[in-house]
């Protein structure tokens, strides 16, 4: 599966299956070891379960913050691909430097996608 394929696969999955909005492919391309990395940006439909409940008082209609999404093929890790250096680089090149996490979209051979958050540094798990 080519790089463009997995990007549109993740985009469609977010838009039409996870019901995200404003999902777009970012123009900036991060080149990494003969690969071009494209990031997506989008807005989740509701508060994601691992966010802390600090803003409990907020009304449910308030919009969720935008998330950055990195699509990656499950097989890519075999090619010395997703190293710590690569992650550092991605965080450094995000348009918003205060971004503390990116969403890793891992695409399996059968097209299923799993989503994992990557935080820079050591972080507390959510409360409760």
């Amino acid at each position, binding site marked *: 599966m080519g790089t463009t394929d997995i990007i549109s696969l993740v985009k469609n999955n977010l838009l039409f299956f996870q019901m995200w909005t404003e999902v777009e492919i970012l123009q900036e391309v991060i080149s990494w070891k003969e690969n071009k990395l494209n990031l997506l940006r989008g807005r989740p439909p509701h508060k994601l379960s691992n966010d802390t409940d600090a803003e409990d008082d907020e009304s449910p209609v308030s919009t969720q913050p935008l998330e950055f999404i990195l699509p990656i093929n499950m097989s890519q890790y075999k090619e*010395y691909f997703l190293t710590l*250096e690569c*992650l550092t680089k991605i965080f450094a090149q995000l348009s918003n430097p205060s971004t503390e996490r990116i*969403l*890793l979209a891992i695409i399996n051979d059968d097209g299923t996608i799993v*989503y994992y958050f990557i935080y820079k*540094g050591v972080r507390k798990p*959510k409360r409760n």
Partner: protein
Amino acid sequence: MAEEGGTRIAINIYAKRTAKGEEVFMPPLVFDIDHIKLLRKWGICGVLSGTLPTAAQQNVFLSVPLRLMLEDVLWLHLNNLADVKLIRQEGDEIMEGITLERGAKLSKIVNDRLNKSFEYQRKFKKDEHIAKLKKIGRINDKTTAEELQRLDKSSNNDQLIESSLFIDIANTSMILRDIRSDSDSLSRDDISNLLFKQYRQAGKMQTYFLYKALRDQGYVLSPGGRFGGKFIAYPGDPLRFHSHLTIQDAIDYHNEPIDLISMISGARLGTTVKKLWVIGGVAEETKETHFFSIEWAGFG
């Protein structure tokens, strides 16, 4: 860090030789209760591994020795807070090395200490008993010694006291304290080199730098096998907090890819046990440690 009057932790490490002649360290052990308390204060908890003579079948209430991780020992040694004693003799060799004369002396010391402790306990119990009898009015200040003895006999008091005495067991071994260990002639640097060599044989040196970086951030680290990691990290004393992180072995910062399958299984497990799955490595040029915490997004 307060040095508590300069107390240095006494760590015993037994070294064994494999069939190929390589030296392998057994788990580092600490026997002294005061040292164990101090270690805990410093955020090194270790694992108690000795059997309690009074509860031999219980494996949740264990006693000295405290078993440390090699990372703990490295950290203590590099910060000059511990004396590492390397014991290269086998246990039976040590025992054989004890002369009859020395053996008799040791057993006399043990017996004397035990008798002293019994004496003290007997007196304490008797005094307590008399106070009780006085309180309920069975005896008063005029009661004679003979009267007391008669009362004791009639209620088998002495026998009861005898059967309720505690046997004090020493925490530290006098035999171990007295033997000359090979490390007596080794310098601090020699011991550092030996520890590093052992550490490299068992895993990656970089993992120690992850350990150090997390300790410097105030985390208390324990072995992480229970949750599928190298360490688990508590934000304070493990009796007060749940652990927050499962830390993996260090990976090469530039050339080692993150194993996505173990990341997924680790982070998914972490979601159910409320721990973040943490991976890290050291950038060689800057010597900087980089950590990334990963958790399941909650969907997909």
